[in-house]
């Protein structure tokens, strides 16, 4: 590590790649006291996520959840967007890098362009749009997509007539600000940074070389990313599901999995991890985009829906009528001149089957782009054999070059939540190096003076959102807007395609100024996700944040009344009317800032807990590590082998030593949490350590309580010492008590206690664990016969390699189904296992010397109690529930509490480590900031009316209101920072002496009356 004086380190970071990974890392770092240069090679940030219609498994609209982050990146004072640019070189050492960046000439003057779009309208030259995957067009002067940030075009000089022939210049003629600069040249700039994060994503596999699938030959064969654009409301067909040959809605669609993945013959032998789940998502979502009854079939080899809640998603698809056929399609042929396609595959009972459909979607895999391989060479970063960034098993976000970190698919195929976790983790790691240089280069956001609206009559502006087709596809948005115009005190109404996009924020601000608005109502989606965005926008326009109301006409209207559009429209009007009624009466409120105790509490001393504690300590924060047993290490103590042959035991012991020797980490063993009170920045925990009660004060909490191996009752476990679990197997192999040579026939059974009715989730690591252990035994005894009985072999991502290795070594894989589970027959002499091998078409009987059960992972038995203590939630399966599955995978909904490891969901060790880095990275942000802002939605006591009865204090679930003595008389007093604004106190007060900020009785009454009479 760099030994130079911390004062010399540069408090800035270069983030290369403006997809969700780069965006998240940039936001985390900008909030932690660093200046961020975010470099993106295309004209705007957003990456692949901006191209998706919906995201799995919640089917959230992708742009809806991405847009607030795009806007935030665009306006954050600590983030500098450098788009249409490439990194050329980076020289130096961690703490002091000099990066040379090539800024391609946009041909547009950044300081003059307002993003009005006239140049694009007037440009006469068009070409297939890359963003639309060629299905739509763009002009020579273009912005890649409507919600792009920066909302500023570039000129494609390879298409522009001026640059080709010296003619046209329509853009120059029509630009009202003279912002076109045709003389602009490419520029190289230098930036000085302390660390670099690479998050450059991937390219999709191009299936044109697969002649047997007909891509580019038959117009109705499309790739999955093309299908996303077809589904997207902002895509070439406005979200109407039609096929390309005749623009008619398809009635039967087939998805072909593993196109360009798990394919040795094409040179892409690894698994792309996300395609199974994305195909299921597309099948579920496609039904919403067409009035026609859809028949959908997914052709797959193994269904790899191992992520959190993904197996439930798979079951949901089956319930909704999606057919799943386990067969790799041989060929797609055209059916005459209808444009229909015939899919040929090995069907049931091993019969050659053909299936005619209207459209085929090829689920293409991910591979590194050519440019990324070139960039890696320039930057001196080591790649793995597949061209992805190489990382060590135990350091999942560190590249081979010190000071360079990686996040996202560039490190290996993965989905959005894992990308976000790696981005959180990479930002945390960068922060560790640069912590001494925090806040040295940051810029403070300057707001204009807040307007004093006292005495003014309400002048309400209403913005009604279409949200693509999410709202507009059900509710008649124009009608709702028209209705709003008729209401008193409403002086301005407009409807938008996406009210949350950057260009609309600018519009809202301009409109506030132009029409002198002093209250804003947005009718769109959930305030839970988008209220802060709009509040920030109106503040930038000089209005107090609390002069804002939001009507949820999506989650509470269009989404739940899809089949009743007329009634939904009336309901939307009522909801908007209600919000307007409240808006008339709301008043400006002040935010409170409270200092943060710069310490963390980590609950759980396993690998996740220890990694998180070390990371917090590395960033300079003191933390308390609570472990309920008398040893650190958790489940990893029972793991001895990894997929790549790394030495787990040494790594574990080194980690334990680091933790115990770290001055900033206080370890409490034999400790149990009794009580936790407080709120983000100011928690107080009472911990029972052996027999002693200690009280700890800290600013954040990280839950890393782990999980346990499922205790099997199936398959006669416990009835013989020849039936053991994978962990028991590993222990015996490592201890030498199991002589691999003695066992000739070994049988492993997958999914024991996972993917069952009681536990319908995947334990994610067991397939790879079984394969790994099988290979270890084969190495000890090459003449062993190992049979692995599985439902779906889930060696996702690069783990596919060991599945192949195991088969090469002679391990036999036999699939079983829930209908035909393996039967274990145990007489006193031997164990026999019978199972139907569908590939053979017969039952097979094995008499193994050893049966190994791959038992799943169950939540820690203390999770329920801990959830109650922390006042957080568990999901259906008993694992802790995160704030948002995709974009906040380590945050709890309650501020200041984070999670990592098995406590969140089953996962292999390297993913627990990545998640722990992420949780620590996120937890460090409020600690680094030093303060938290408390929303003024808190209780207010009118002391004159208060009679000191104490009902409020006894009823408050958060201990946020208490009785105090005022000249010998009892009065209630609010503890603002603990108050969650639930309103129980106000509702219970017999004297009506308590009001809630922003939810005063008169405001709520007005809203309810309007709703009731609508």
């Amino acid at each position, binding site marked *: 590590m760099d030994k130079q004086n911390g004062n010399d380190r540069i408090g800035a970071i270069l983030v290369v790649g403006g997809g969700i990974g780069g965006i998240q890392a940039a936001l985390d770092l900008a909030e932690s006291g660093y200046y961020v240069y975010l470099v993106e090679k295309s004209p705007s940030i957003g990456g692949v996520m901006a191209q998706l219609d919906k995201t799995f498994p919640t089917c959230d609209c992708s742009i809806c959840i991405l847009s607030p982050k795009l806007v935030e990146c665009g306006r954050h004072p600590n983030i500098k967007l450098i788009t249409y640019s490439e990194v050329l070189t980076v020289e130096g050492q961690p703490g002091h890098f000099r990066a040379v960046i090539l800024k391609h000439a946009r041909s547009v003057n950044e300081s003059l362009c307002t993003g009005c779009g006239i140049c694009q309208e007037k440009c006469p030259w068009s070409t297939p749009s890359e963003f639309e995957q060629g299905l739509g067009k763009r002009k020579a002067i273009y912005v890649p997509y409507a919600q792009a940030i920066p909302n500023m075009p570039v000129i494609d000089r390879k298409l522009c007539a001026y640059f080709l022939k010296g003619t046209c210049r329509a853009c120059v003629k029509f630009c009202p600000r003279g912002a076109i600069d045709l003389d602009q040249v490419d520029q190289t700039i230098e930036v000085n940074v302390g660390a670099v994060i690479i998050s450059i994503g991937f390219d999709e596999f191009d299936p044109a070389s697969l002649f047997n699938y007909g891509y580019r030959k038959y117009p109705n064969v499309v790739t999955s990313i093309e299908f996303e654009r077809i589904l997207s409301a902002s895509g070439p067909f406005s979200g109407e599901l039609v096929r390309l040959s005749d623009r008619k809605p398809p009635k039967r669609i087939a998805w072909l999995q593993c196109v360009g993945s798990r394919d040795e013959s094409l040179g892409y032998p690894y698994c792309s991890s996300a395609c199974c789940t994305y195909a299921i998502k597309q099948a579920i979502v496609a039904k919403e985009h067409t009035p026609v009854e859809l028949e959908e079939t997914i052709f797959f080899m193994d269904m790899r829906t191992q992520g959190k809640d993904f197996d439930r998603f798979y079951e949901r698809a089956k319930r909704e009528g999606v057919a799943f056929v*386990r067969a790799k399609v041989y060929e797609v042929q055209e059916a005459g001149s209808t444009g229909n396609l015939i899919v040929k595959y*090995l069907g049931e009972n091993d019969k050659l089957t053909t299936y005619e459909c209207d459209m085929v979607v090829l689920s293409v895999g991910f591979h590194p782009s050519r440019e990324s391989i070139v960039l890696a060479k320039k930057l001196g970063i080591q790649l793995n054999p597949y061209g992805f960034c190489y990382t060590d098993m135990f350091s999942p976000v560190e590249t081979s070059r010190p000071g360079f970190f990686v996040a996202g698919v560039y490190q290996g195929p993965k989905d959005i939540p894992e990308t976000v976790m790696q981005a959180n983790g990479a930002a945390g790691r960068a922060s560790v190096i640069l912590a001494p240089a925090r806040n040295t280069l940051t810029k403070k956001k300057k707001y204009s003076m807040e307007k004093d609206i006292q005495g003014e009559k309400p002048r309400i502006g209403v913005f009604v959102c279409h949200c693509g087709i999410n709202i507009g596809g059900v509710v008649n948005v124009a009608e709702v807007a028209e209705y709003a115009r008729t209401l008193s005190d409403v002086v301005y109404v407009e409807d938008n395609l996406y009210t949350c996009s950057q260009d609309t924020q600018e519009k809202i601000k301009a409109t506030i100024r132009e029409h002198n608005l002093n209250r804003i109502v947005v009718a769109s989606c959930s305030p839970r996700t988008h209220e802060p965005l709009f509040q920030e926008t109106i503040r930038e326009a000089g209005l107090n944040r609390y002069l804002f109301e939001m009507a949820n006409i999506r989650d509470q209207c269009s989404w739940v009344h899809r089949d009743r559009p007329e009634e939904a429209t009336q309901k939307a009007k009522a909801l908007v009317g209600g919000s307007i009624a409240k808006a008339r009466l709301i008043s400006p409120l002040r935010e409170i800032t409270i200092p943060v105790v710069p310490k963390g509490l980590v609950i759980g001393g396993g690998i996740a807990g220890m990694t998180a504690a070390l990371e917090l300590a590395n960033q300079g924060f003191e933390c308390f590590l609570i472990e309920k047993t008398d040893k650190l290490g958790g489940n990893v103590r029972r793991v001895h082998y990894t997929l790549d042959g790394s030495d787990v035991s040494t790594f574990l012991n080194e980690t334990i030593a680091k933790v115990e020797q770290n001055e900033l980490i206080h370890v409490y063993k034999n400790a149990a949490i009794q009580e936790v009170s407080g709120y983000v920045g100011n928690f107080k925990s009472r911990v029972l350590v052996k027999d002693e009660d200690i009280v700890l004060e800290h600013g954040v909490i990280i839950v890393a309580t782990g999980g346990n191996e499922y205790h099997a009752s199936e398959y006669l476990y416990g009835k013989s010492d020849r039936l053991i679990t994978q962990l028991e197997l590993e222990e015996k192999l490592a201890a030498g008590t199991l002589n691999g040579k003695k066992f000739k026939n070994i049988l492993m059974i997958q999914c024991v206690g996972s993917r069952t009715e009681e536990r319908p989730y995947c334990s994610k690591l067991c397939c790879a664990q079984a394969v790994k252990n099988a290979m270890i035994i084969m190495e000890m005894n090459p003449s062993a*016969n190992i049979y692995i009985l599985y439902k779906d072999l889930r060696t996702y991502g690069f783990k596919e390699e060991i599945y192949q290795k195991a088969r090469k070594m002679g391990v036999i*894989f036999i699939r079983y189904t829930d209908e035909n589970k393996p039967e274990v027959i145990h007489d006193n002499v031997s164990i026999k296992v019978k199972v139907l091998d569908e590939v*053979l078409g017969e039952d097979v009987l094995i008499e193994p010397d050893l049966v190994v059960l791959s038992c799943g992972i169950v939540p820690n038995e203390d999770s329920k109690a801990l959830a109650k203590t922390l006042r957080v939630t568990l999901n259906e399966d008993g694992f802790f529930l995160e704030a948002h599955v995709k974009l906040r995978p380590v945050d709890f909904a309650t501020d200041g509490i984070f999670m990592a490891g098995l406590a969140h969901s089953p996962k292999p060790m390297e993913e627990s480590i990545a998640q722990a880095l992420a949780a620590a990275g996120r937890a460090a942000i409020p600690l680094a900031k030093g303060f938290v802002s408390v929303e003024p939605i808190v209780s207010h006591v009118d002391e004159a009316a208060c009679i000191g009865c104490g009902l409020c204090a006894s009823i408050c679930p958060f201990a946020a209101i208490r009785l105090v003595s005022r000249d010998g008389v009892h009065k209630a007093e609010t503890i603002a920072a603990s108050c969650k604004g639930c309103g129980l106190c106000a509702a219970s007060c017999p004297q009506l002496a308590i009001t809630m900020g922003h939810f005063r009785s008169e405001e709520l009454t007005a809203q309810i009356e309007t709703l009731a009479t609508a």
Partner: protein
Amino acid sequence: MTVVLNELDTNFKYDVANEPGGENIKLCFACGLCTASCPVADIDQKFNPRRIIRMVLLGMRKEVLSSDTIWFCIQCYSCQAHCPQNVDFADIMKALRSIAVREEHVAPSFVEKVKEIDVLCQKLRHEMVSTVIDSRSKGWEGELSKLAVDAVKRL
């Protein structure tokens, strides 16, 4: 009928893997593409490349080497063209045939006869296609079986 795996010859797969052409047999993950592509499987459901591979991997030495099925493959290479694991089934067929001869499940004269049949089939096809080729633009309507009989007569 239950197949008892302990009674099978689990070395068979290694022997096939050591035979030229059979190197990649263990890589098969039973995706079914080979059988779906096979023109012989199309006319004879009992000919199932995927199943043949599985029988080898489980160790059904005698059943495979003495079976009829390994002689029905016409070596069109459709299976091999798109197998995602480069299992090279057509080459495995050749390897199995070699072993079958070597382990005396078939007489060398039988193998010769099959080779002669292959040559004759090519000649037959050539004859039949030549007959219909003159009407290629107008399309030929007639009985395939008569065409075959006539071609045989000419050969």
